[in-house]
């Protein structure tokens, strides 16, 4: 398969669009957790009831949909480990669904901006993604799907506690909204270590790119709400959006400061990283992520012209172990991956220079 073809298959179509504030906010995501009243939660379910949940949702979603959007369903049991890993790297399913869910399934639309996980921790997890900073739009989309499902399914809902979820941390709205941000200047100027505790105090979590407990690779941070009970969906979104707006301003200011005060040093660093990516023969994912972050910053500051903006988003995903192995068509050792990763990055950058 040609690299161009592989990239176009690997990158979710929604990611190719450009969203608001996309120089800093890579993507916005909303997830709603829902359960069906008549079935016990996946953790306590037997095979039979888990399969009933899957068929209930697949019949419900195959019904006439006003948007006439077709969802494709994949059963976890039928996927190979590398296929599941690719879905995780694309953020379409959670690591938990890939690894642990016994009778898990996922429904996705064609541009992969909507995915519905079945039998993860909860029966239903509706996820909507969009490029850039557009939380309201993704919530609206998720609500439409939620209402559509609710027409045919009795949700586990309680007047006092709201939507009932398997984990007490999701009860109420079942809403988790998150924003993926690229914050190289705040990291470089060592301001991030002060900003994170401040954000935490407001009841929001800051994490690395792949969620809970992961490292912030490539200066990419995910900010999300923690509380789901006692606040309306709109208030949760407003609080998150307010913080994100402030972080955007801070990052812009920090970028300006770097350009004003340390222009040559900054240029040196960014050009060196581009040089590394253009010339490397062996590269580990951490170094790749760091260099990609630099190159992306260089593009946004117009220091490195002529390279497309999507390169960071693309290569951050493409250079993950799952994708590398899918591209190679075989299982690779970490050393082999580092070689493949270097080759793939070099080839991708060559495409730019044509």
């Amino acid at each position: 398969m040609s690299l161009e073809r592989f990239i176009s298959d690997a990158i979710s179509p929604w990611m190719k669009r450009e969203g608001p504030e996309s120089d800093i906010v890579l993507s916005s995501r909303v997830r709603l957790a829902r359960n069906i009243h008549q079935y016990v939660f996946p953790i306590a379910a037997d095979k039979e009831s888990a399969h009933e949940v899957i068929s209930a949702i697949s019949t419900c979603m195959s019904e006439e949909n006003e948007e006439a959007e077709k969802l494709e369903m994949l059963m976890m049991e039928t996927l190979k480990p590398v296929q599941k890993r690719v879905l995780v790297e694309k953020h379409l399913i959670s690591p938990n669904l890939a690894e642990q869910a016994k009778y898990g399934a996922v429904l996705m639309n064609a541009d992969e901006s909507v995915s519905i996980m079945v039998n993860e921790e909860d029966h239903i997890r509706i996820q909507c993604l969009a490029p850039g900073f557009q939380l309201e739009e993704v919530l609206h989309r998720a609500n439409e799907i939620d209402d559509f499902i609710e027409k045919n399914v009795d949700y586990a809902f309680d007047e006092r506690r709201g939507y009932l979820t398997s984990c007490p941390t999701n009860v109420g709205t079942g809403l988790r909204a998150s924003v993926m941000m690229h914050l190289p200047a705040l990291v470089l100027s060592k301001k991030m270590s002060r900003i994170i505790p401040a954000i935490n105090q407001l009841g929001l979590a800051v994490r690395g790119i792949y969620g809970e407990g992961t490292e912030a690779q490539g200066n990419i941070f995910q900010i999300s709400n923690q509380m789901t009970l006692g606040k309306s969906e709109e208030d949760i979104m407003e609080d998150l959006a307010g913080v994100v707006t402030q972080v955007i301003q801070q990052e812009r200011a920090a970028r300006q400061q770097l350009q004003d005060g340390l222009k040559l040093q900054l240029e040196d660093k960014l050009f060196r990283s581009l040089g590394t990516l253009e010339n490397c023969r062996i590269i580990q994912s951490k170094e790749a992520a760091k260099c990609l972050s630099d190159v992306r910053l260089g593009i946004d500051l117009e220091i490195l012209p002529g390279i497309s903006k999507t390169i960071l988003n693309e290569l951050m995903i493409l250079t993950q172990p799952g994708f590398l192995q899918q591209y190679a068509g075989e299982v690779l050792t970490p050393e082999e991956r580092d070689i493949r990763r270097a080759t793939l990055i070099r080839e991708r950058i060559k495409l730019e220079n044509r």
Partner: protein
Amino acid sequence: MNCEECHEREASLHFTKIINGEKTEFHICEHCAKEKGEFLPGSNSFSIHQLLSGLLHGDGHVPNTPSSNFIPPSLSCEKCGMSYYQFAKIGRFGCDNCYKAFESKLNPIFKRVHGGNTLHAGKIPLRAGSSIQEKKQLQQLKQALQQYILNEEFEKAAETRDVIREIEHRLQQGRDT
């Protein structure tokens, strides 16, 4: 210290295993750890449920009277069979009825996890929501009915009674379909 696997990179992860008092240590670099573990991104993290389970066991932090703090071993959910002890251990409910079964224990947990909140203030599902609205209306009507009877306003009482019957009938039908 060099990594015990590849003997090249600096060891950044240090494990100590103690099994039956016998202590073994090993030191490896991140690269080799990944190869050994083959974990998916994010999946090796300390899970929220482990943390939560700690919270649930720490019931004693809440100024409760000793009697309300006592959990009878029989406290369990009749729908899915999960006991409160199991719930506290894994930090997850087994079904929607667990919320009813463990109701008396939940407020302190929700308060801690959700910044002091215990009541839902967000979206109400369209279909289930309409019956919730009707239930509230029903309660108000029943109170009004009592008042009319006390005031000997029998005509109004009869009217109210008919409305109540109508709503009750509708709610009953909704449940049957």
